[in-house]
Structures are given as C-alpha cells and as structure tokens.
C-alpha cells in the first residue's frame, strides 16, 4: 500500500471573517506530482501555507505523520519549499546563503548545490540582488535539489520567468528530484506547462476544493466533444458541465458520461486541465 504523506480532515483557515480555505479533506500519497490549480486569491497559497506549517489552521492535518504547525522545524527536514522568486534574501551573497543552508539543514548537500550552480551563469560571490529572476530561480532550485527531502512544495515557482527557464525548471524537478517515494506539489497559473508532468490535480475555487482527482480519473471522467448546432439540444440533454460555441460548432465538456454515448456527436477527447478548470468554474 502506498504511504500517505499528507492527510487533512476538515482543514480550514480564516482571516478574520473571511474564510480563505473552507473545510477540506485531502490525502496525498507518495510518488505523486500534484497540481493545485485555482484563480488568484482562490486559496492555493493558503492551503500550501497550512501544509507547510507556515500559518495556523483549523481541523486535523498530518504531514508525514506530524503536525506541521507545531513540528515545523522537524518536518522541514523532510519537506522542501520554493515560493516565488522574491523570497531569497536579496542582501546575501550566493556563497553565504549556501553556507547558512548547510549550517541549518542536515540533509543539504552543499557540494551538490555548488556543482549544479557551476553549470549555470550564477557566480557564487554574487549578491542575490545582482542576479536576474532566472538566476535567482537557479539558486533556489540548486538549494532545493540538494536537499534530500520527501516532499517538494512549489508555490508559483516560475512566476515571471521566460519559457526557456520555466521548462528547464520543471525538467530539473523531474530528472533530479522526483521518484516513487517522493511527492511534488505545485501551484501555478501556467497550467498547460505543468499538465504533462502532473499525476494528480486539485482545483480550488473561493476557498473550496472543487476537484481532487488523479489525472487518470480526470481522463476517464471528463470528456469533451464538438457538437454541431443541429445536435446541440440532444447533447444538452446529457447535462454538460460547460459549453462553448465557436465557428458553427459547440464544444461541450461532460462529467461521467460514457464515451459511447458521446460518440453519436463526434469523437470524444480528453479535456485539458485549463478547459476543465474553466468548465468547473461555471
């Protein structure tokens, strides 16, 4: 049986009267790459902050069997976290930063981080504030990948990066970090770029989880089909989640409708996460 790394029951977070995360149940086993997808302010970062013990919460939450809020210091030996590029101390030199991480993190391999940075244009004696966004991500990535962690959490890690750096970032995660015993959790707006590497998707809308499913389940459960105008009424009778009319035909997204039923309108196909997110947001 696959080990469950993250388990939440009734996990919720309020900021004053605003409920940023509504009571949520989650189970995330090892060996998954989970995409947490939602609009700005939907509650993605709130969920991650709770999982990482970065803020208090209500409900029952276990990450690797620990209470993240009360045992964050121990938990962070197993969890690695990259927020957006602006979180590294701008006043620090790269070499000093690596020294400090080596002094603070028992599972950090400084030599590995330096070796990785030597393959980039980042100079060890540079200050973080002198680096470009892409270089800062390289530094953060070098640190994260040199930590022997079980869970890697990425919160909008490629925000503001160009496409080359974004692709390189995810390639590095896949080749240098991920294996069957580890889990990666990613929040991002660039859904199309991470979709090919995800094994699981969680949609959040207005603080509530609207979808929590593996990509296999998503592929089986949600299908899209293009319907001609003369068949629209028949298709609408199957209660599609979403319909979008374009150039004389309407694309409908269905939830839990058998492919055989849909074949009467056209060839059913997988729904991309971006389209599914829009569909579920209706």
């Amino acid at each position, binding site marked *: 049986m696959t080990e469950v790394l993250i388990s939440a029951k009734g996990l919720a977070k309020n900021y004053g009267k605003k409920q940023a995360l509504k009571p949520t149940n989650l189970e995330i086993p090892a060996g998954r790459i989970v995409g947490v997808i939602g609009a700005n302010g939907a509650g993605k970062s709130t969920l991650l902050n709770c999982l990482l013990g970065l803020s*208090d919460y209500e409900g029952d939450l276990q990450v690797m069997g620990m209470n993240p809020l009360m045992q964050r210091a121990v938990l962070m030996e197993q969890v690695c976290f990259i927020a957006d590029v*602006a979180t*590294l101390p701008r*006043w620090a030199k790269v070499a000093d930063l690596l020294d400090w991480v080596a002094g603070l993190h*028992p599972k950090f391999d400084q030599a590995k981080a330096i070796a990785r940075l030597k393959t980039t244009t980042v100079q060890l004696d540079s200050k973080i504030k002198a680096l470009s966004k892409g270089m800062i991500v390289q530094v*953060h990535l070098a640190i994260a990948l040199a930590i022997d962690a079980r869970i890697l959490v990425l919160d909008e890690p490629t925000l503001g990066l160009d496409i080359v750096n974004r692709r390189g970032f995810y390639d590095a995660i896949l080749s240098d970090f991920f294996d069957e015993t580890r889990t990666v959790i990613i929040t991002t707006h660039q859904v199309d770029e991470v979709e090919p590497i995800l094994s699981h998707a969680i949609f959040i809308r207005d603080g509530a989880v609207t979808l929590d499913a593996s990509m296999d389940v998503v592929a089986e459960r949600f299908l899209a089909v293009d319907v001609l105008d003369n068949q629209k009424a028949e298709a609408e009778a199957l209660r599609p989640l979403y319909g979008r009319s374009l150039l004389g035909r309407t694309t409908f997204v269905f939830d839990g409708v058998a492919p055989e039923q849909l074949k009467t309108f056209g060839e059913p196909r997988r729904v991309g996460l971006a389209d599914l997110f829009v569909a579920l947001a209706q």
Partner: protein
Amino acid sequence: MNKFLTLIRRDIADNRGALVITPIVIAAILLTVTLFATLTGNARFGFDPEDFAAAKQNPGLNSQVIVDTQKGAAVVKRGPDGKVTIITNDGKSKSLDDAIDPKTKAGLEAILPVGTATAAVLPLAIALISILFVLAGALHDERKDRTILFWKSMPVSDLQTTSAKLVSIVGVGLFFALAVTIVLHVAITGLAVATLGNVGITGISAATVFLNATKLWSVLAVGLLIYVGWALPVYGWVTMVSAWAPKMPFVAAFAPLFVVPLVYMAIAYRGDDNDMILNALWEPAGRLIGEPMTDGMSRIVQPSSDNLPTIPVAEILAQLSSSLAQPGFWIGLAVAGGFIYAASEIRRRRAL
C-alpha cells in the same frame, strides 16, 4: 548549537551596516578628528589653523595664548620644540612640567583615561540606540521582504530564530561596539599620552594610564552585561512587537513606553514623586537608560586615602552587581522570557 551559530552569523550579515560598520565608522571619524587635532597643534590649548600654517612656514615662531587664572593672567607659549612655557603676570617663567606637581601628575594618570573614555564611548552609546531600531525591524522586515518564506523552509524552530536574532543584535551588536570602543580608547589615550610628552610633561607613566584604562574596560564590560539584563524585558517587548506589527514596528514598540506615562502624567499626576503607577509606567524607559543599576552609584574617579584620584574598580563592580539582588532584575528576566516566547509563537502562526 551549530544551527544557532549559523543563525547568528546570518543575522550579523543581515545587519552588518548597523551592527558592525556603524561603530567602526564612528570610531574612525573620532580617531581621525583626534589625530588631526593633535597633529595640528591642538595641544597648545586651542586650535587655530592659521597659527598652524604660520608655524609650518616659520618653525621658529612661538605661538602663544593668554589664559586667565585665579591669580591673574598668564601667557602660555609653545616653543618650536613643542615644549610649553608659562609666564605669569609677575614675569616669572617656568616650564609646564615644573608647573605640575608629582601628585597632580599621579592624578592625571587616573583622570586621563576617564577623559578619553568619554569620547571613546561614543560608538557604544550609538550602538545602544541603533540596536533598538534593528531589533524593531528584526521579525518585521523578514515578513515585509517575504524572506520569511525561505527561512521558514529551513528546519529551524521559531524560538531558535527569535532567540538568535536577540542574541546577535543585542549581544553581538553591543559587545562588538564595546570592542570597538576599547580599541578607540587605546588609540585616543595613546595619542593623549604622546601629547603630554610632546608638550614637555614628564613623569606620566603610560603603563599606569593604560592599567587604569583596563580597569575602566572591566567596569564597562561588566556594566554592559548587567545593563543588558536590566534592559532585556524592553528588548523582548520590542522583539514581540516586531513579530506582530503590520507596519512601523519601531513606533508601535516605543509609543506605548513613552506615550502612556505622558498621558497619565497629563491626566492624573499630582506632583507626587512616589506615585507608584507613574513609576511603574516609566520603568521600561528607566531600564533603557540603566537607571536601576546606577542608582546610588559613586563617581568613577574617587580620592584615595592619600588624596590621589583613583578608579575604585572593586567598589564600582560591587555596586553594579548589587543591583542583581533586586527582585526587579529577575522579574524582568522572566518577563523578557515571556515576550521572547510570545514573539516566537506569533512568528510560528503567521506566514506573512
């Protein structure tokens, strides 16, 4: 322990400008000014750049000043060899060295390092103020620049982080400033001793002067340690406010310490110096200026049994240490512990 030392190294690097560079720059400025004044002939009881320029062009020129004494006016001349001669109004002339009796010279050996210390202590005095600003920003700035998200991804507890900030800013900050002060004191005192010799005063023992300086340093070091103990609840309070304040943490931390007693004075104070509420309200400010530990303190320089000025180190240290017997000291430490714990809990429960 390794983690704690790493945190301290990090915090010193973070606040290098305020904790390390500022005391060094202040000391360098003071030393430069002192050196300049000394080299330009300040030892002749005044500084006049025109005289100096003239003296450089005419090495034989005698510059002179008139001083008023209780016995009447006297002319003080400095010869080209640097030696000072005093001519009283009755026409008698004697060297400055002759004018100072051996007992006064012995007194100078005690007073001189105290005098130079009043100038050399400036880096420490400024550090005592600047650390309050640094401390107020310690836990606030990491939220403001979002670096808290990176530091919280390290396996370090909030209590360790908070304590390390306090130790690095207060402990390292103040004691580094003390070290700079001592180095500056050595330099200025050395210049002063050299100047005395230059104006012709003999019989001043540099060894005795520096021995007295060493006594001052021990008083200063022990006094600083005890001061930190007294001020710790205020430092703890500032750290807690830094963890909580959404903005302007310095104002948020210090406004209550000064505004509340002032408001109380405006509303309820009736001129009673023993008003317990008012005294309690002013206590944090009193702790910051070292009031509880200096209450009833004797002077640094006191006459000995043979009426020579001396620095009674043991007596001063005993007086400073006696303040540790006050319950307020230990209650303050417990309160400081509470504030530091509260600061760490606030940090634990908020991401930004």
